[in-house]
């Protein structure tokens, strides 16, 4: 078995490149999904029924599709509609759309439980529209659902492993490549698991630090 790990160690560069790609992919996807989640959450809370129904359809739709299938659709099915994306872009898009829907639902939940008086104070001081959302509504709901958003980021990291099937050179893809070349499945996959674990722990630690700061404001 040590021999297996020695082989993986010899190819650690490849594994680290995959790890780096997973980090970049996850960070980009989290930032973009969080950004996209805001307009979707605003639509979910809209007073206009068609707007609300459209957003609700998107969110519920995403929650019912297995991520693997969505990745297939974006990469293999969209070219039929003349939308052709390279595997990186397709993978990133799939991650962003899928998780933006989840995050929008998280934001909507926190928004709905925001005390009415909090928003009313904003209105009474002359905030309205987007400014009301950005300055008065968004900050407390992000603080309130920090742990859940952190969880969602971990979900993004793990979902990114599926992108191996559309040949995005992320961590799982590289581990898989090493194991199939040298037939060292145990060492290759366990090494990947350890690296995923390190990454998820880092996310948990940073979320915990932000959460401690958020608690001072409650």
């Amino acid at each position, binding site marked *: 078995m040590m021999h297996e790990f020695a082989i993986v160690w010899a190819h650690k560069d490849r594994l680290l490149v995959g790890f780096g790609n997973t980090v970049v992919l996850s960070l980009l996807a989290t930032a973009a999904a969080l950004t996209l989640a805001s307009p979707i959450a605003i639509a979910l809370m809209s007073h206009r029924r068609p707007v609300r129904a459209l957003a609700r359809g998107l969110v519920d739709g995403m929650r019912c599709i297995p991520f693997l299938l969505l990745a297939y659709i974006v990469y293999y099915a969209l070219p039929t509609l003349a939308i052709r994306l390279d595997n990186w872009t397709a993978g990133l898009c799939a991650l962003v759309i899928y998780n933006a829907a989840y995050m929008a639902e998280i934001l909507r939940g926190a928004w709905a439980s925001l005390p009415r*008086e*909090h928003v*009313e*104070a*904003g*209105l*009474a*001081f*002359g*905030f*309205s*529209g987007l*400014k009301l959302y950005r*300055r*008065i509504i968004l*900050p*407390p709901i992000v*603080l309130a659902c920090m742990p859940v958003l952190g969880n969602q980021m971990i979900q993004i990291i793990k979902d990114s492993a599926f992108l191996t099937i559309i040949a995005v050179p992320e961590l799982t893809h590289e581990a898989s490549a090493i194991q199939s070349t040298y037939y060292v499945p145990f060492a290759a996959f366990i090494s990947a698991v350890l690296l995923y674990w390190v990454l998820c722990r880092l996310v948990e630690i940073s979320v915990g630090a932000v959460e401690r700061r958020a608690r*001072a*404001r*409650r």
Partner: protein
Amino acid sequence: MPVEPAVTRPRLPAEAAERPVLEIDGIWKKFGEHDVLTDVSLSVQRGQTVCILGPSGSGKSTLLRCVNWLERPDHGHIYLSGQRIGFRPVTDLPMSQAELAQIRARVGMVFQHFNLWPHLTVLGNLIEAPIYVQRRPRDEVVAEAEALLDKIDLREKRDVYPARLSGGQKQRVAIARALAMRPSVLLFDEATSALDPELVGEVLAVMEELAQDGMTMVVVTHEMGFARDAVIEVAPPDKFFETPKTERARQFLQRYASAPRAGLARRRG
């Protein structure tokens, strides 16, 4: 001769100069089948403090919330320095949210439950709206906010979050937050009734000081002491236009707690 109903007559700008800061003209408000406000009128001159007394459920808070259009009155007009609230001049079309926001920025509001923004520090609460709504320069706003914190004696709480303050401190910060907007009129909605008895004094002291400084205020309160020096102005909303004799109003005041529904405006000084 065309009949022009007085209620829809647009106000001319020339009239604005001699007008009261706040004018409430015959407003009605119904929640479902329940009449909350029936033909209530009130006018507040510059520098005046008007107290509104009455038992819970008599529509005092609703009246204040109508002033900044957090509630829409069913009928009647409200004017802020001569400008009609809720409707555009001449065309009489309803104001957009952005137009309402501009009006609301000129009306300071102090809530029963403070409603400070928990994600902002004390200073952050004071400077938020002046910077992002009124778009005034940050340096100027911060300097003014710090002076206000000195005034309410909470300078040392500048960088603390509201969760760490006592009820009385929160309400003083809420008053300073409203003052930071340089409002034309300041509305107090039961500002002391959510406080522990021993904390009421510090908030009333700030309100007394503001009244003496000539701030224009409308105060919904249960604090008889604060309204003590007032001259009785208006009586129960059922017969709002029948201005009661002082003696009758006093009697009313004595048994106001048992009255089914009543509004009583008192005018200080």
